[in-house]
């Protein structure tokens, strides 16, 4: 195997003891890409490095999503004023450990990153109207102590169920732990019927934590408007389709829905939101 570094650096950021926020491009409720784009826009993130895809992705053509050809990108941005580095990346398809090592090499060698945060949406069976709590997994007792200053759930136990695999965020958190880099993965519940579309409420909860943690001084009015717009759209679906309203009401009262109702809810909400976008 070539020992050549699998990344390209365009410019060397001037950062010390910075933090890295990682969002994956394929994420529930488009949380990863939307939050990373939002941070870059608000903080003036400047692209400075990327991981070359050839070693980690199957490059036999491109996939097409939403009528547009996609290409696996892994790009780093830096925000000098806030001492922050952000990475938006597709999940590699092979050689995961080397890929994640490359992420941390860029972070440590070029940005002197001391803390890592991954963000992600997790599928929830609750309604979008239910209160949502940010969950965090730390990779060290010290990081857990840092998280204790914030209003987030951080005392749970979990083991990967049989037949499933850990998330890439857990893998990255473990690689960081092996390098003694403090890290946490942040998880926001995303209602199952918003997983394939967008969930601005989940984006807001994530950005809110990052704003508090890094003192970003974000004005949330635009995100609040987006949340309100989404809620209004779903309210319209509920008015137009009493059946859908009934299913969501069931979720709101913790009754749960059948598989058939679940599928119908997903289909109608996704179709309606796409049409109105």
């Amino acid at each position, binding site marked *: 195997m070539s020992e050549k570094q699998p990344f390209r650096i365009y410019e060397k950021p001037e950062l010390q003891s910075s933090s890295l926020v990682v969002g994956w491009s394929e994420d529930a409720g488009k949380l990863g890409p939307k939050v990373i784009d939002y941070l870059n826009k608000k903080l003036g993130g400047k692209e400075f490095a990327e991981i070359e895809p050839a070693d980690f992705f199957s490059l036999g053509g491109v996939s097409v999503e939403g009528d547009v050809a996609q290409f696996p990108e892994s790009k780093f941005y830096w925000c000098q004023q806030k001492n922050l580095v952000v990475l938006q990346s597709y999940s590699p*398809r092979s050689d995961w*450990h080397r890929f994640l090592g490359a992420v941390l090499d860029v972070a440590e060698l070029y940005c002197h990153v001391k803390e890592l945060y991954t963000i992600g949406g997790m599928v929830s069976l609750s309604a979008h109207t239910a209160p949502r709590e940010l969950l965090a997994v730390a990779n060290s007792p010290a990081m857990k102590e840092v998280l204790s200053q914030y209003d987030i759930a951080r005392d749970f*136990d*979990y083991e*990967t169920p049989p037949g499933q*695999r850990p998330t890439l965020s857990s893998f990255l958190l473990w690689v960081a732990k092996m390098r003694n880099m403090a890290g946490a993965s942040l998880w926001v519940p995303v209602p199952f019927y918003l997983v394939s579309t967008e969930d601005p409420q989940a984006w807001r909860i994530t950005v809110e934590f990052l704003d508090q943690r890094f003192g970003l001084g974000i004005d949330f009015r635009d995100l609040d408007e987006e949340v309100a717009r989404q809620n209004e759209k779903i309210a319209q679906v509920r008015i137009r389709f009493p059946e859908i309203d009934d299913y969501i009401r069931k979720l709101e009262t913790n009754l749960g829905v059948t598989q058939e109702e679940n599928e119908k809810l997903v289909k109608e909400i996704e179709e309606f939101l796409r049409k109105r976008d």
Partner: protein
Amino acid sequence: MGIRLYKKPEVENPVLIAGWPGIGNIGIIAVDTLRGMVRAEEFGEIESWDFFYPKKVSIRNGELKDLEFPSNKFYFVKTEKKDLIFFIGEEQPTEGGKVYAEGTKAYQMANLVLDLALKFGCRRVYTSGAAVAPIHHTARPKVWAVPNSQDLIDEIKSYENTVLMSDIEGRGGQGAITGLNGLLLGVAKKRGLEAICVMGEIPVYLQGFPLAYPKASKSVLEVLTVTLGIKIDMQGIAALVERSESEIERLFERFPPEIREELNKLIYVTYAESTESGPITDEDKKRILEDIDKFFKKESKED
């Protein structure tokens, strides 16, 4: 990326026996059963994180405690006749979503396994897997053996219930062994080690089901134990075969009657060492195999 040894076993000219999961888990059941019966002791492992995606995360009280990867372990035992080293891999390293080992990672793993084998003076390697064959599930599976050197052909001919590729009708000694079972054979050849892959037969119509096929593992085990001069109690694997037979019979009963009827004709199909004609003609055999193929293609589309 490397091998971690917990201890240095005192072995002399050991034979390496390697097993991975594959069709019907035939190879790994045979190798792991042998390892258990001879009470081989674990002495090292290949560090897995460079090859595999993790299989389990453990979070306690909100803190990531552990990430488990598929294991790749070495074991050793000194038997009366031979010293043995076992390598048991829980998964095959794959690239780009392929099922069996292929590419750089697979090549690296094959080399790591052989690095250890050579370090301890090993000159002979066995790998084990499945041979998909037009046989009926009530038949005793044969063992297909492929060596990595012409010099081993005569030895293989002396194995009981074993065929070479040239014994199999229509193959003319040709074929392919996918995944690490085949790759290890090739890399062993490149590095000057003798290697033989022993593959237990699985009926063509069972290969797509997520079922173990210990009956073929037993055939492999019978060959390996004789070759290695080891006597083991076969009761454990015989019980496993019995349980699996009932499961396969239940599955078979669920096939449509016309398909069962077609498949039952395989009882009379002889494809290996065809020195005499079976009770069905070559034309019948061809049609049976085509029908079976069509049926399972249709089934998989319906799933």
